[in-house]
């Protein structure tokens, strides 16, 4: 079960080149439980297009994908209930402005759950829970979503999807535009949800530090091709990262710089700052 991509390609019509292919021949399997996946790649590499396929917002131009037993192909199928797929796989868009529309935060978060036929009271309860999960207190419930700061809007939009209680959660750059503290709060929240409920979470990000620290699987897209699928450490051990317009995490960069300049022999593969510091101490620098 979960999501399975089978030779999925997607082409956009484009004026200059006729067809512009966003993703090409993607084969991929995402299980429904206990996965914590980072999706990385330079801008325009097809990350968002891939994410939109995962809850059947767009259909592949060729190939097929299977989402919880529903086969999605280029043609819309009357038998498939696309709405129920979106209940199971929640996708949070990058810009909250595209989804906030109600007068109060509470009503806006309730919009998603209410679309899936649950009672008002239940939806209210879920809205409150989801809002608290993303680190905003109850005073926000009655506020106007358009008067919030960028980071708060982002959290409300994430709460809007969390309240739907999807089995798989996909987030398109949830940490962009947030301060470092807010970034950590959200990443810890996602990790928490993943650990406690076992929901699979897919996160699109550019932050290699986050990728290295938090995730146990990373997908790398380059010009629409899936070129890497595996553990982050394996990715960072490879040499051709720069070729794909990606960067190494800061810990690796600092430690390898120290190794090079001071001719040390530190183990550069340290995930967190604390671990890096330990390694430096062990190397006798401090």
């Amino acid at each position, binding site marked *: 079960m979960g999501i399975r991509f089978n030779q999925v390609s997607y082409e956009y019509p484009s004026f200059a080149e006729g067809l512009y292919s966003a993703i090409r021949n993607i084969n991929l399997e995402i299980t429904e439980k206990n996965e914590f996946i980072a999706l990385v790649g330079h801008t325009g590499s097809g990350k968002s297009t891939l994410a939109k396929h995962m809850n059947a917002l767009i259909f592949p131009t060729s190939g097929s994908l299977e989402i919880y037993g529903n086969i999605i192909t280029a043609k819309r199928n009357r038998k498939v209930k*696309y709405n129920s797929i979106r209940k199971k796989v929640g996708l949070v868009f990058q810009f909250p402005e*595209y*989804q906030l529309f109600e007068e109060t935060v509470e009503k806006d978060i309730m919009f998603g759950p209410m679309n899936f036929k649950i009672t008002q009271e239940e939806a209210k309860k879920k809205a409150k829970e989801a809002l608290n999960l993303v680190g905003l207190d109850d005073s926000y419930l009655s506020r106007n979503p358009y008067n919030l700061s960028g980071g708060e809007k982002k959290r409300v939009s994430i709460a809007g999807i969390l309240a739907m209680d999807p089995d798989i959660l996909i987030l398109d750059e949830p940490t962009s535009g947030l301060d470092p503290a807010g970034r950590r709060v959200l990443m810890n929240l996602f990790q928490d949800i993943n650990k406690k409920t076992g929901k699979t979470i897919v996160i699109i990000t550019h932050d290699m530090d986050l990728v290295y620290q938090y995730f146990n699987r990373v997908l790398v897209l380059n010009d629409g091709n899936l070129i890497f699928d595996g553990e982050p450490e394996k990715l960072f051990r490879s040499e051709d990262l720069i070729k794909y317009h990606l960067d190494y995490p800061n810990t690796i960069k600092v430690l390898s710089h120290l190794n090079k300049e001071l001719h040390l022999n530190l183990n550069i593969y340290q995930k967190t700052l604390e671990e890096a510091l330990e390694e430096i101490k062990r190397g006798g620098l401090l």
Partner: protein
Amino acid sequence: MKSVIIGQYIPGKGLFYRLDPRTKIIAVLLIMIAVFLLESITHLLIGFGIAFMLLIIGRISVIKVIKGLKPIMILLIFTFIFQIILNREGEMIVNHEMYLTLYTALFLVLAFVVWRVLVKFTRFRFTMFFLFVAGVYLILRYVDFGYQLLSPFNFQVYEAGLRMSAFVVIRLLIIITLSTVLTLTTKPTNLTQGLEKLMHPLKKIGFNSEDFALIISISLRYIPTIFDEANKIMLAQASRGADFSEGKLKDKLKQVISLLVPMFIIAFMRSEELANAMESRNFVPGNKRTRINELIFSYRDVIATAFSVLVLALAIVLKVI
């Protein structure tokens, strides 16, 4: 949306692409006036021939123009039919007895079903529509047996009706062809620039043509952007369970609101950003601005203008005689 040709610029080469937009606007205007002055059907047909010639001279694909006519076709057909049926002047040309019996009704339903099915599976929608209309006529005319639902009635076509309907349709065709040529071969920015220059003298009576042109070019520029945004919002809301192609009418109403509110907010945000960007590049409303591409009036434009003036003069002469 993409199949709509009217008002769309298609890059290309040819005579009309090289003309000054001012020339094109004036020429189209003059020829249109001329078309309205014509009173006989032969003259109109000649006018139509000229319009067709212009297409060939400009090396504009006739197929593209015909495709562009498609949305207007319904309007043309309705004007044609109404003129024929309602206009009762002059000599009677056709007088057919029509019947509406039980069998006619049955055949009509059958024809309708066949038409709808064929439309679904074949590509020639308009041909099918004409065949359907012809079929309806034949059924009404010749199926005269069975229980009569209505007493027989007469289908009459009068000479004036036929003439007037042909007149209106050809006139509309010429006008649409000409304006399609104008928009097909002129970039929207050039078009507004041309309008701006042409309306410049109106400044004396308090009409600021530059502001007007700016408003038009900004709105044209933002149509695709807004469509893009609408699409994104639709996906974002579909992701929250508001799929526009599923669900009941009551739910759909709510979904439309969920689309419209972000739409307005984003449009306002965009416009504010645009205003800031323009101001930070020193745009001051009403100040004199220079252009990168100045319009040039060349010998071609002189010829084209002379041609259109000639056409108008001819039409006036014909009208007076």
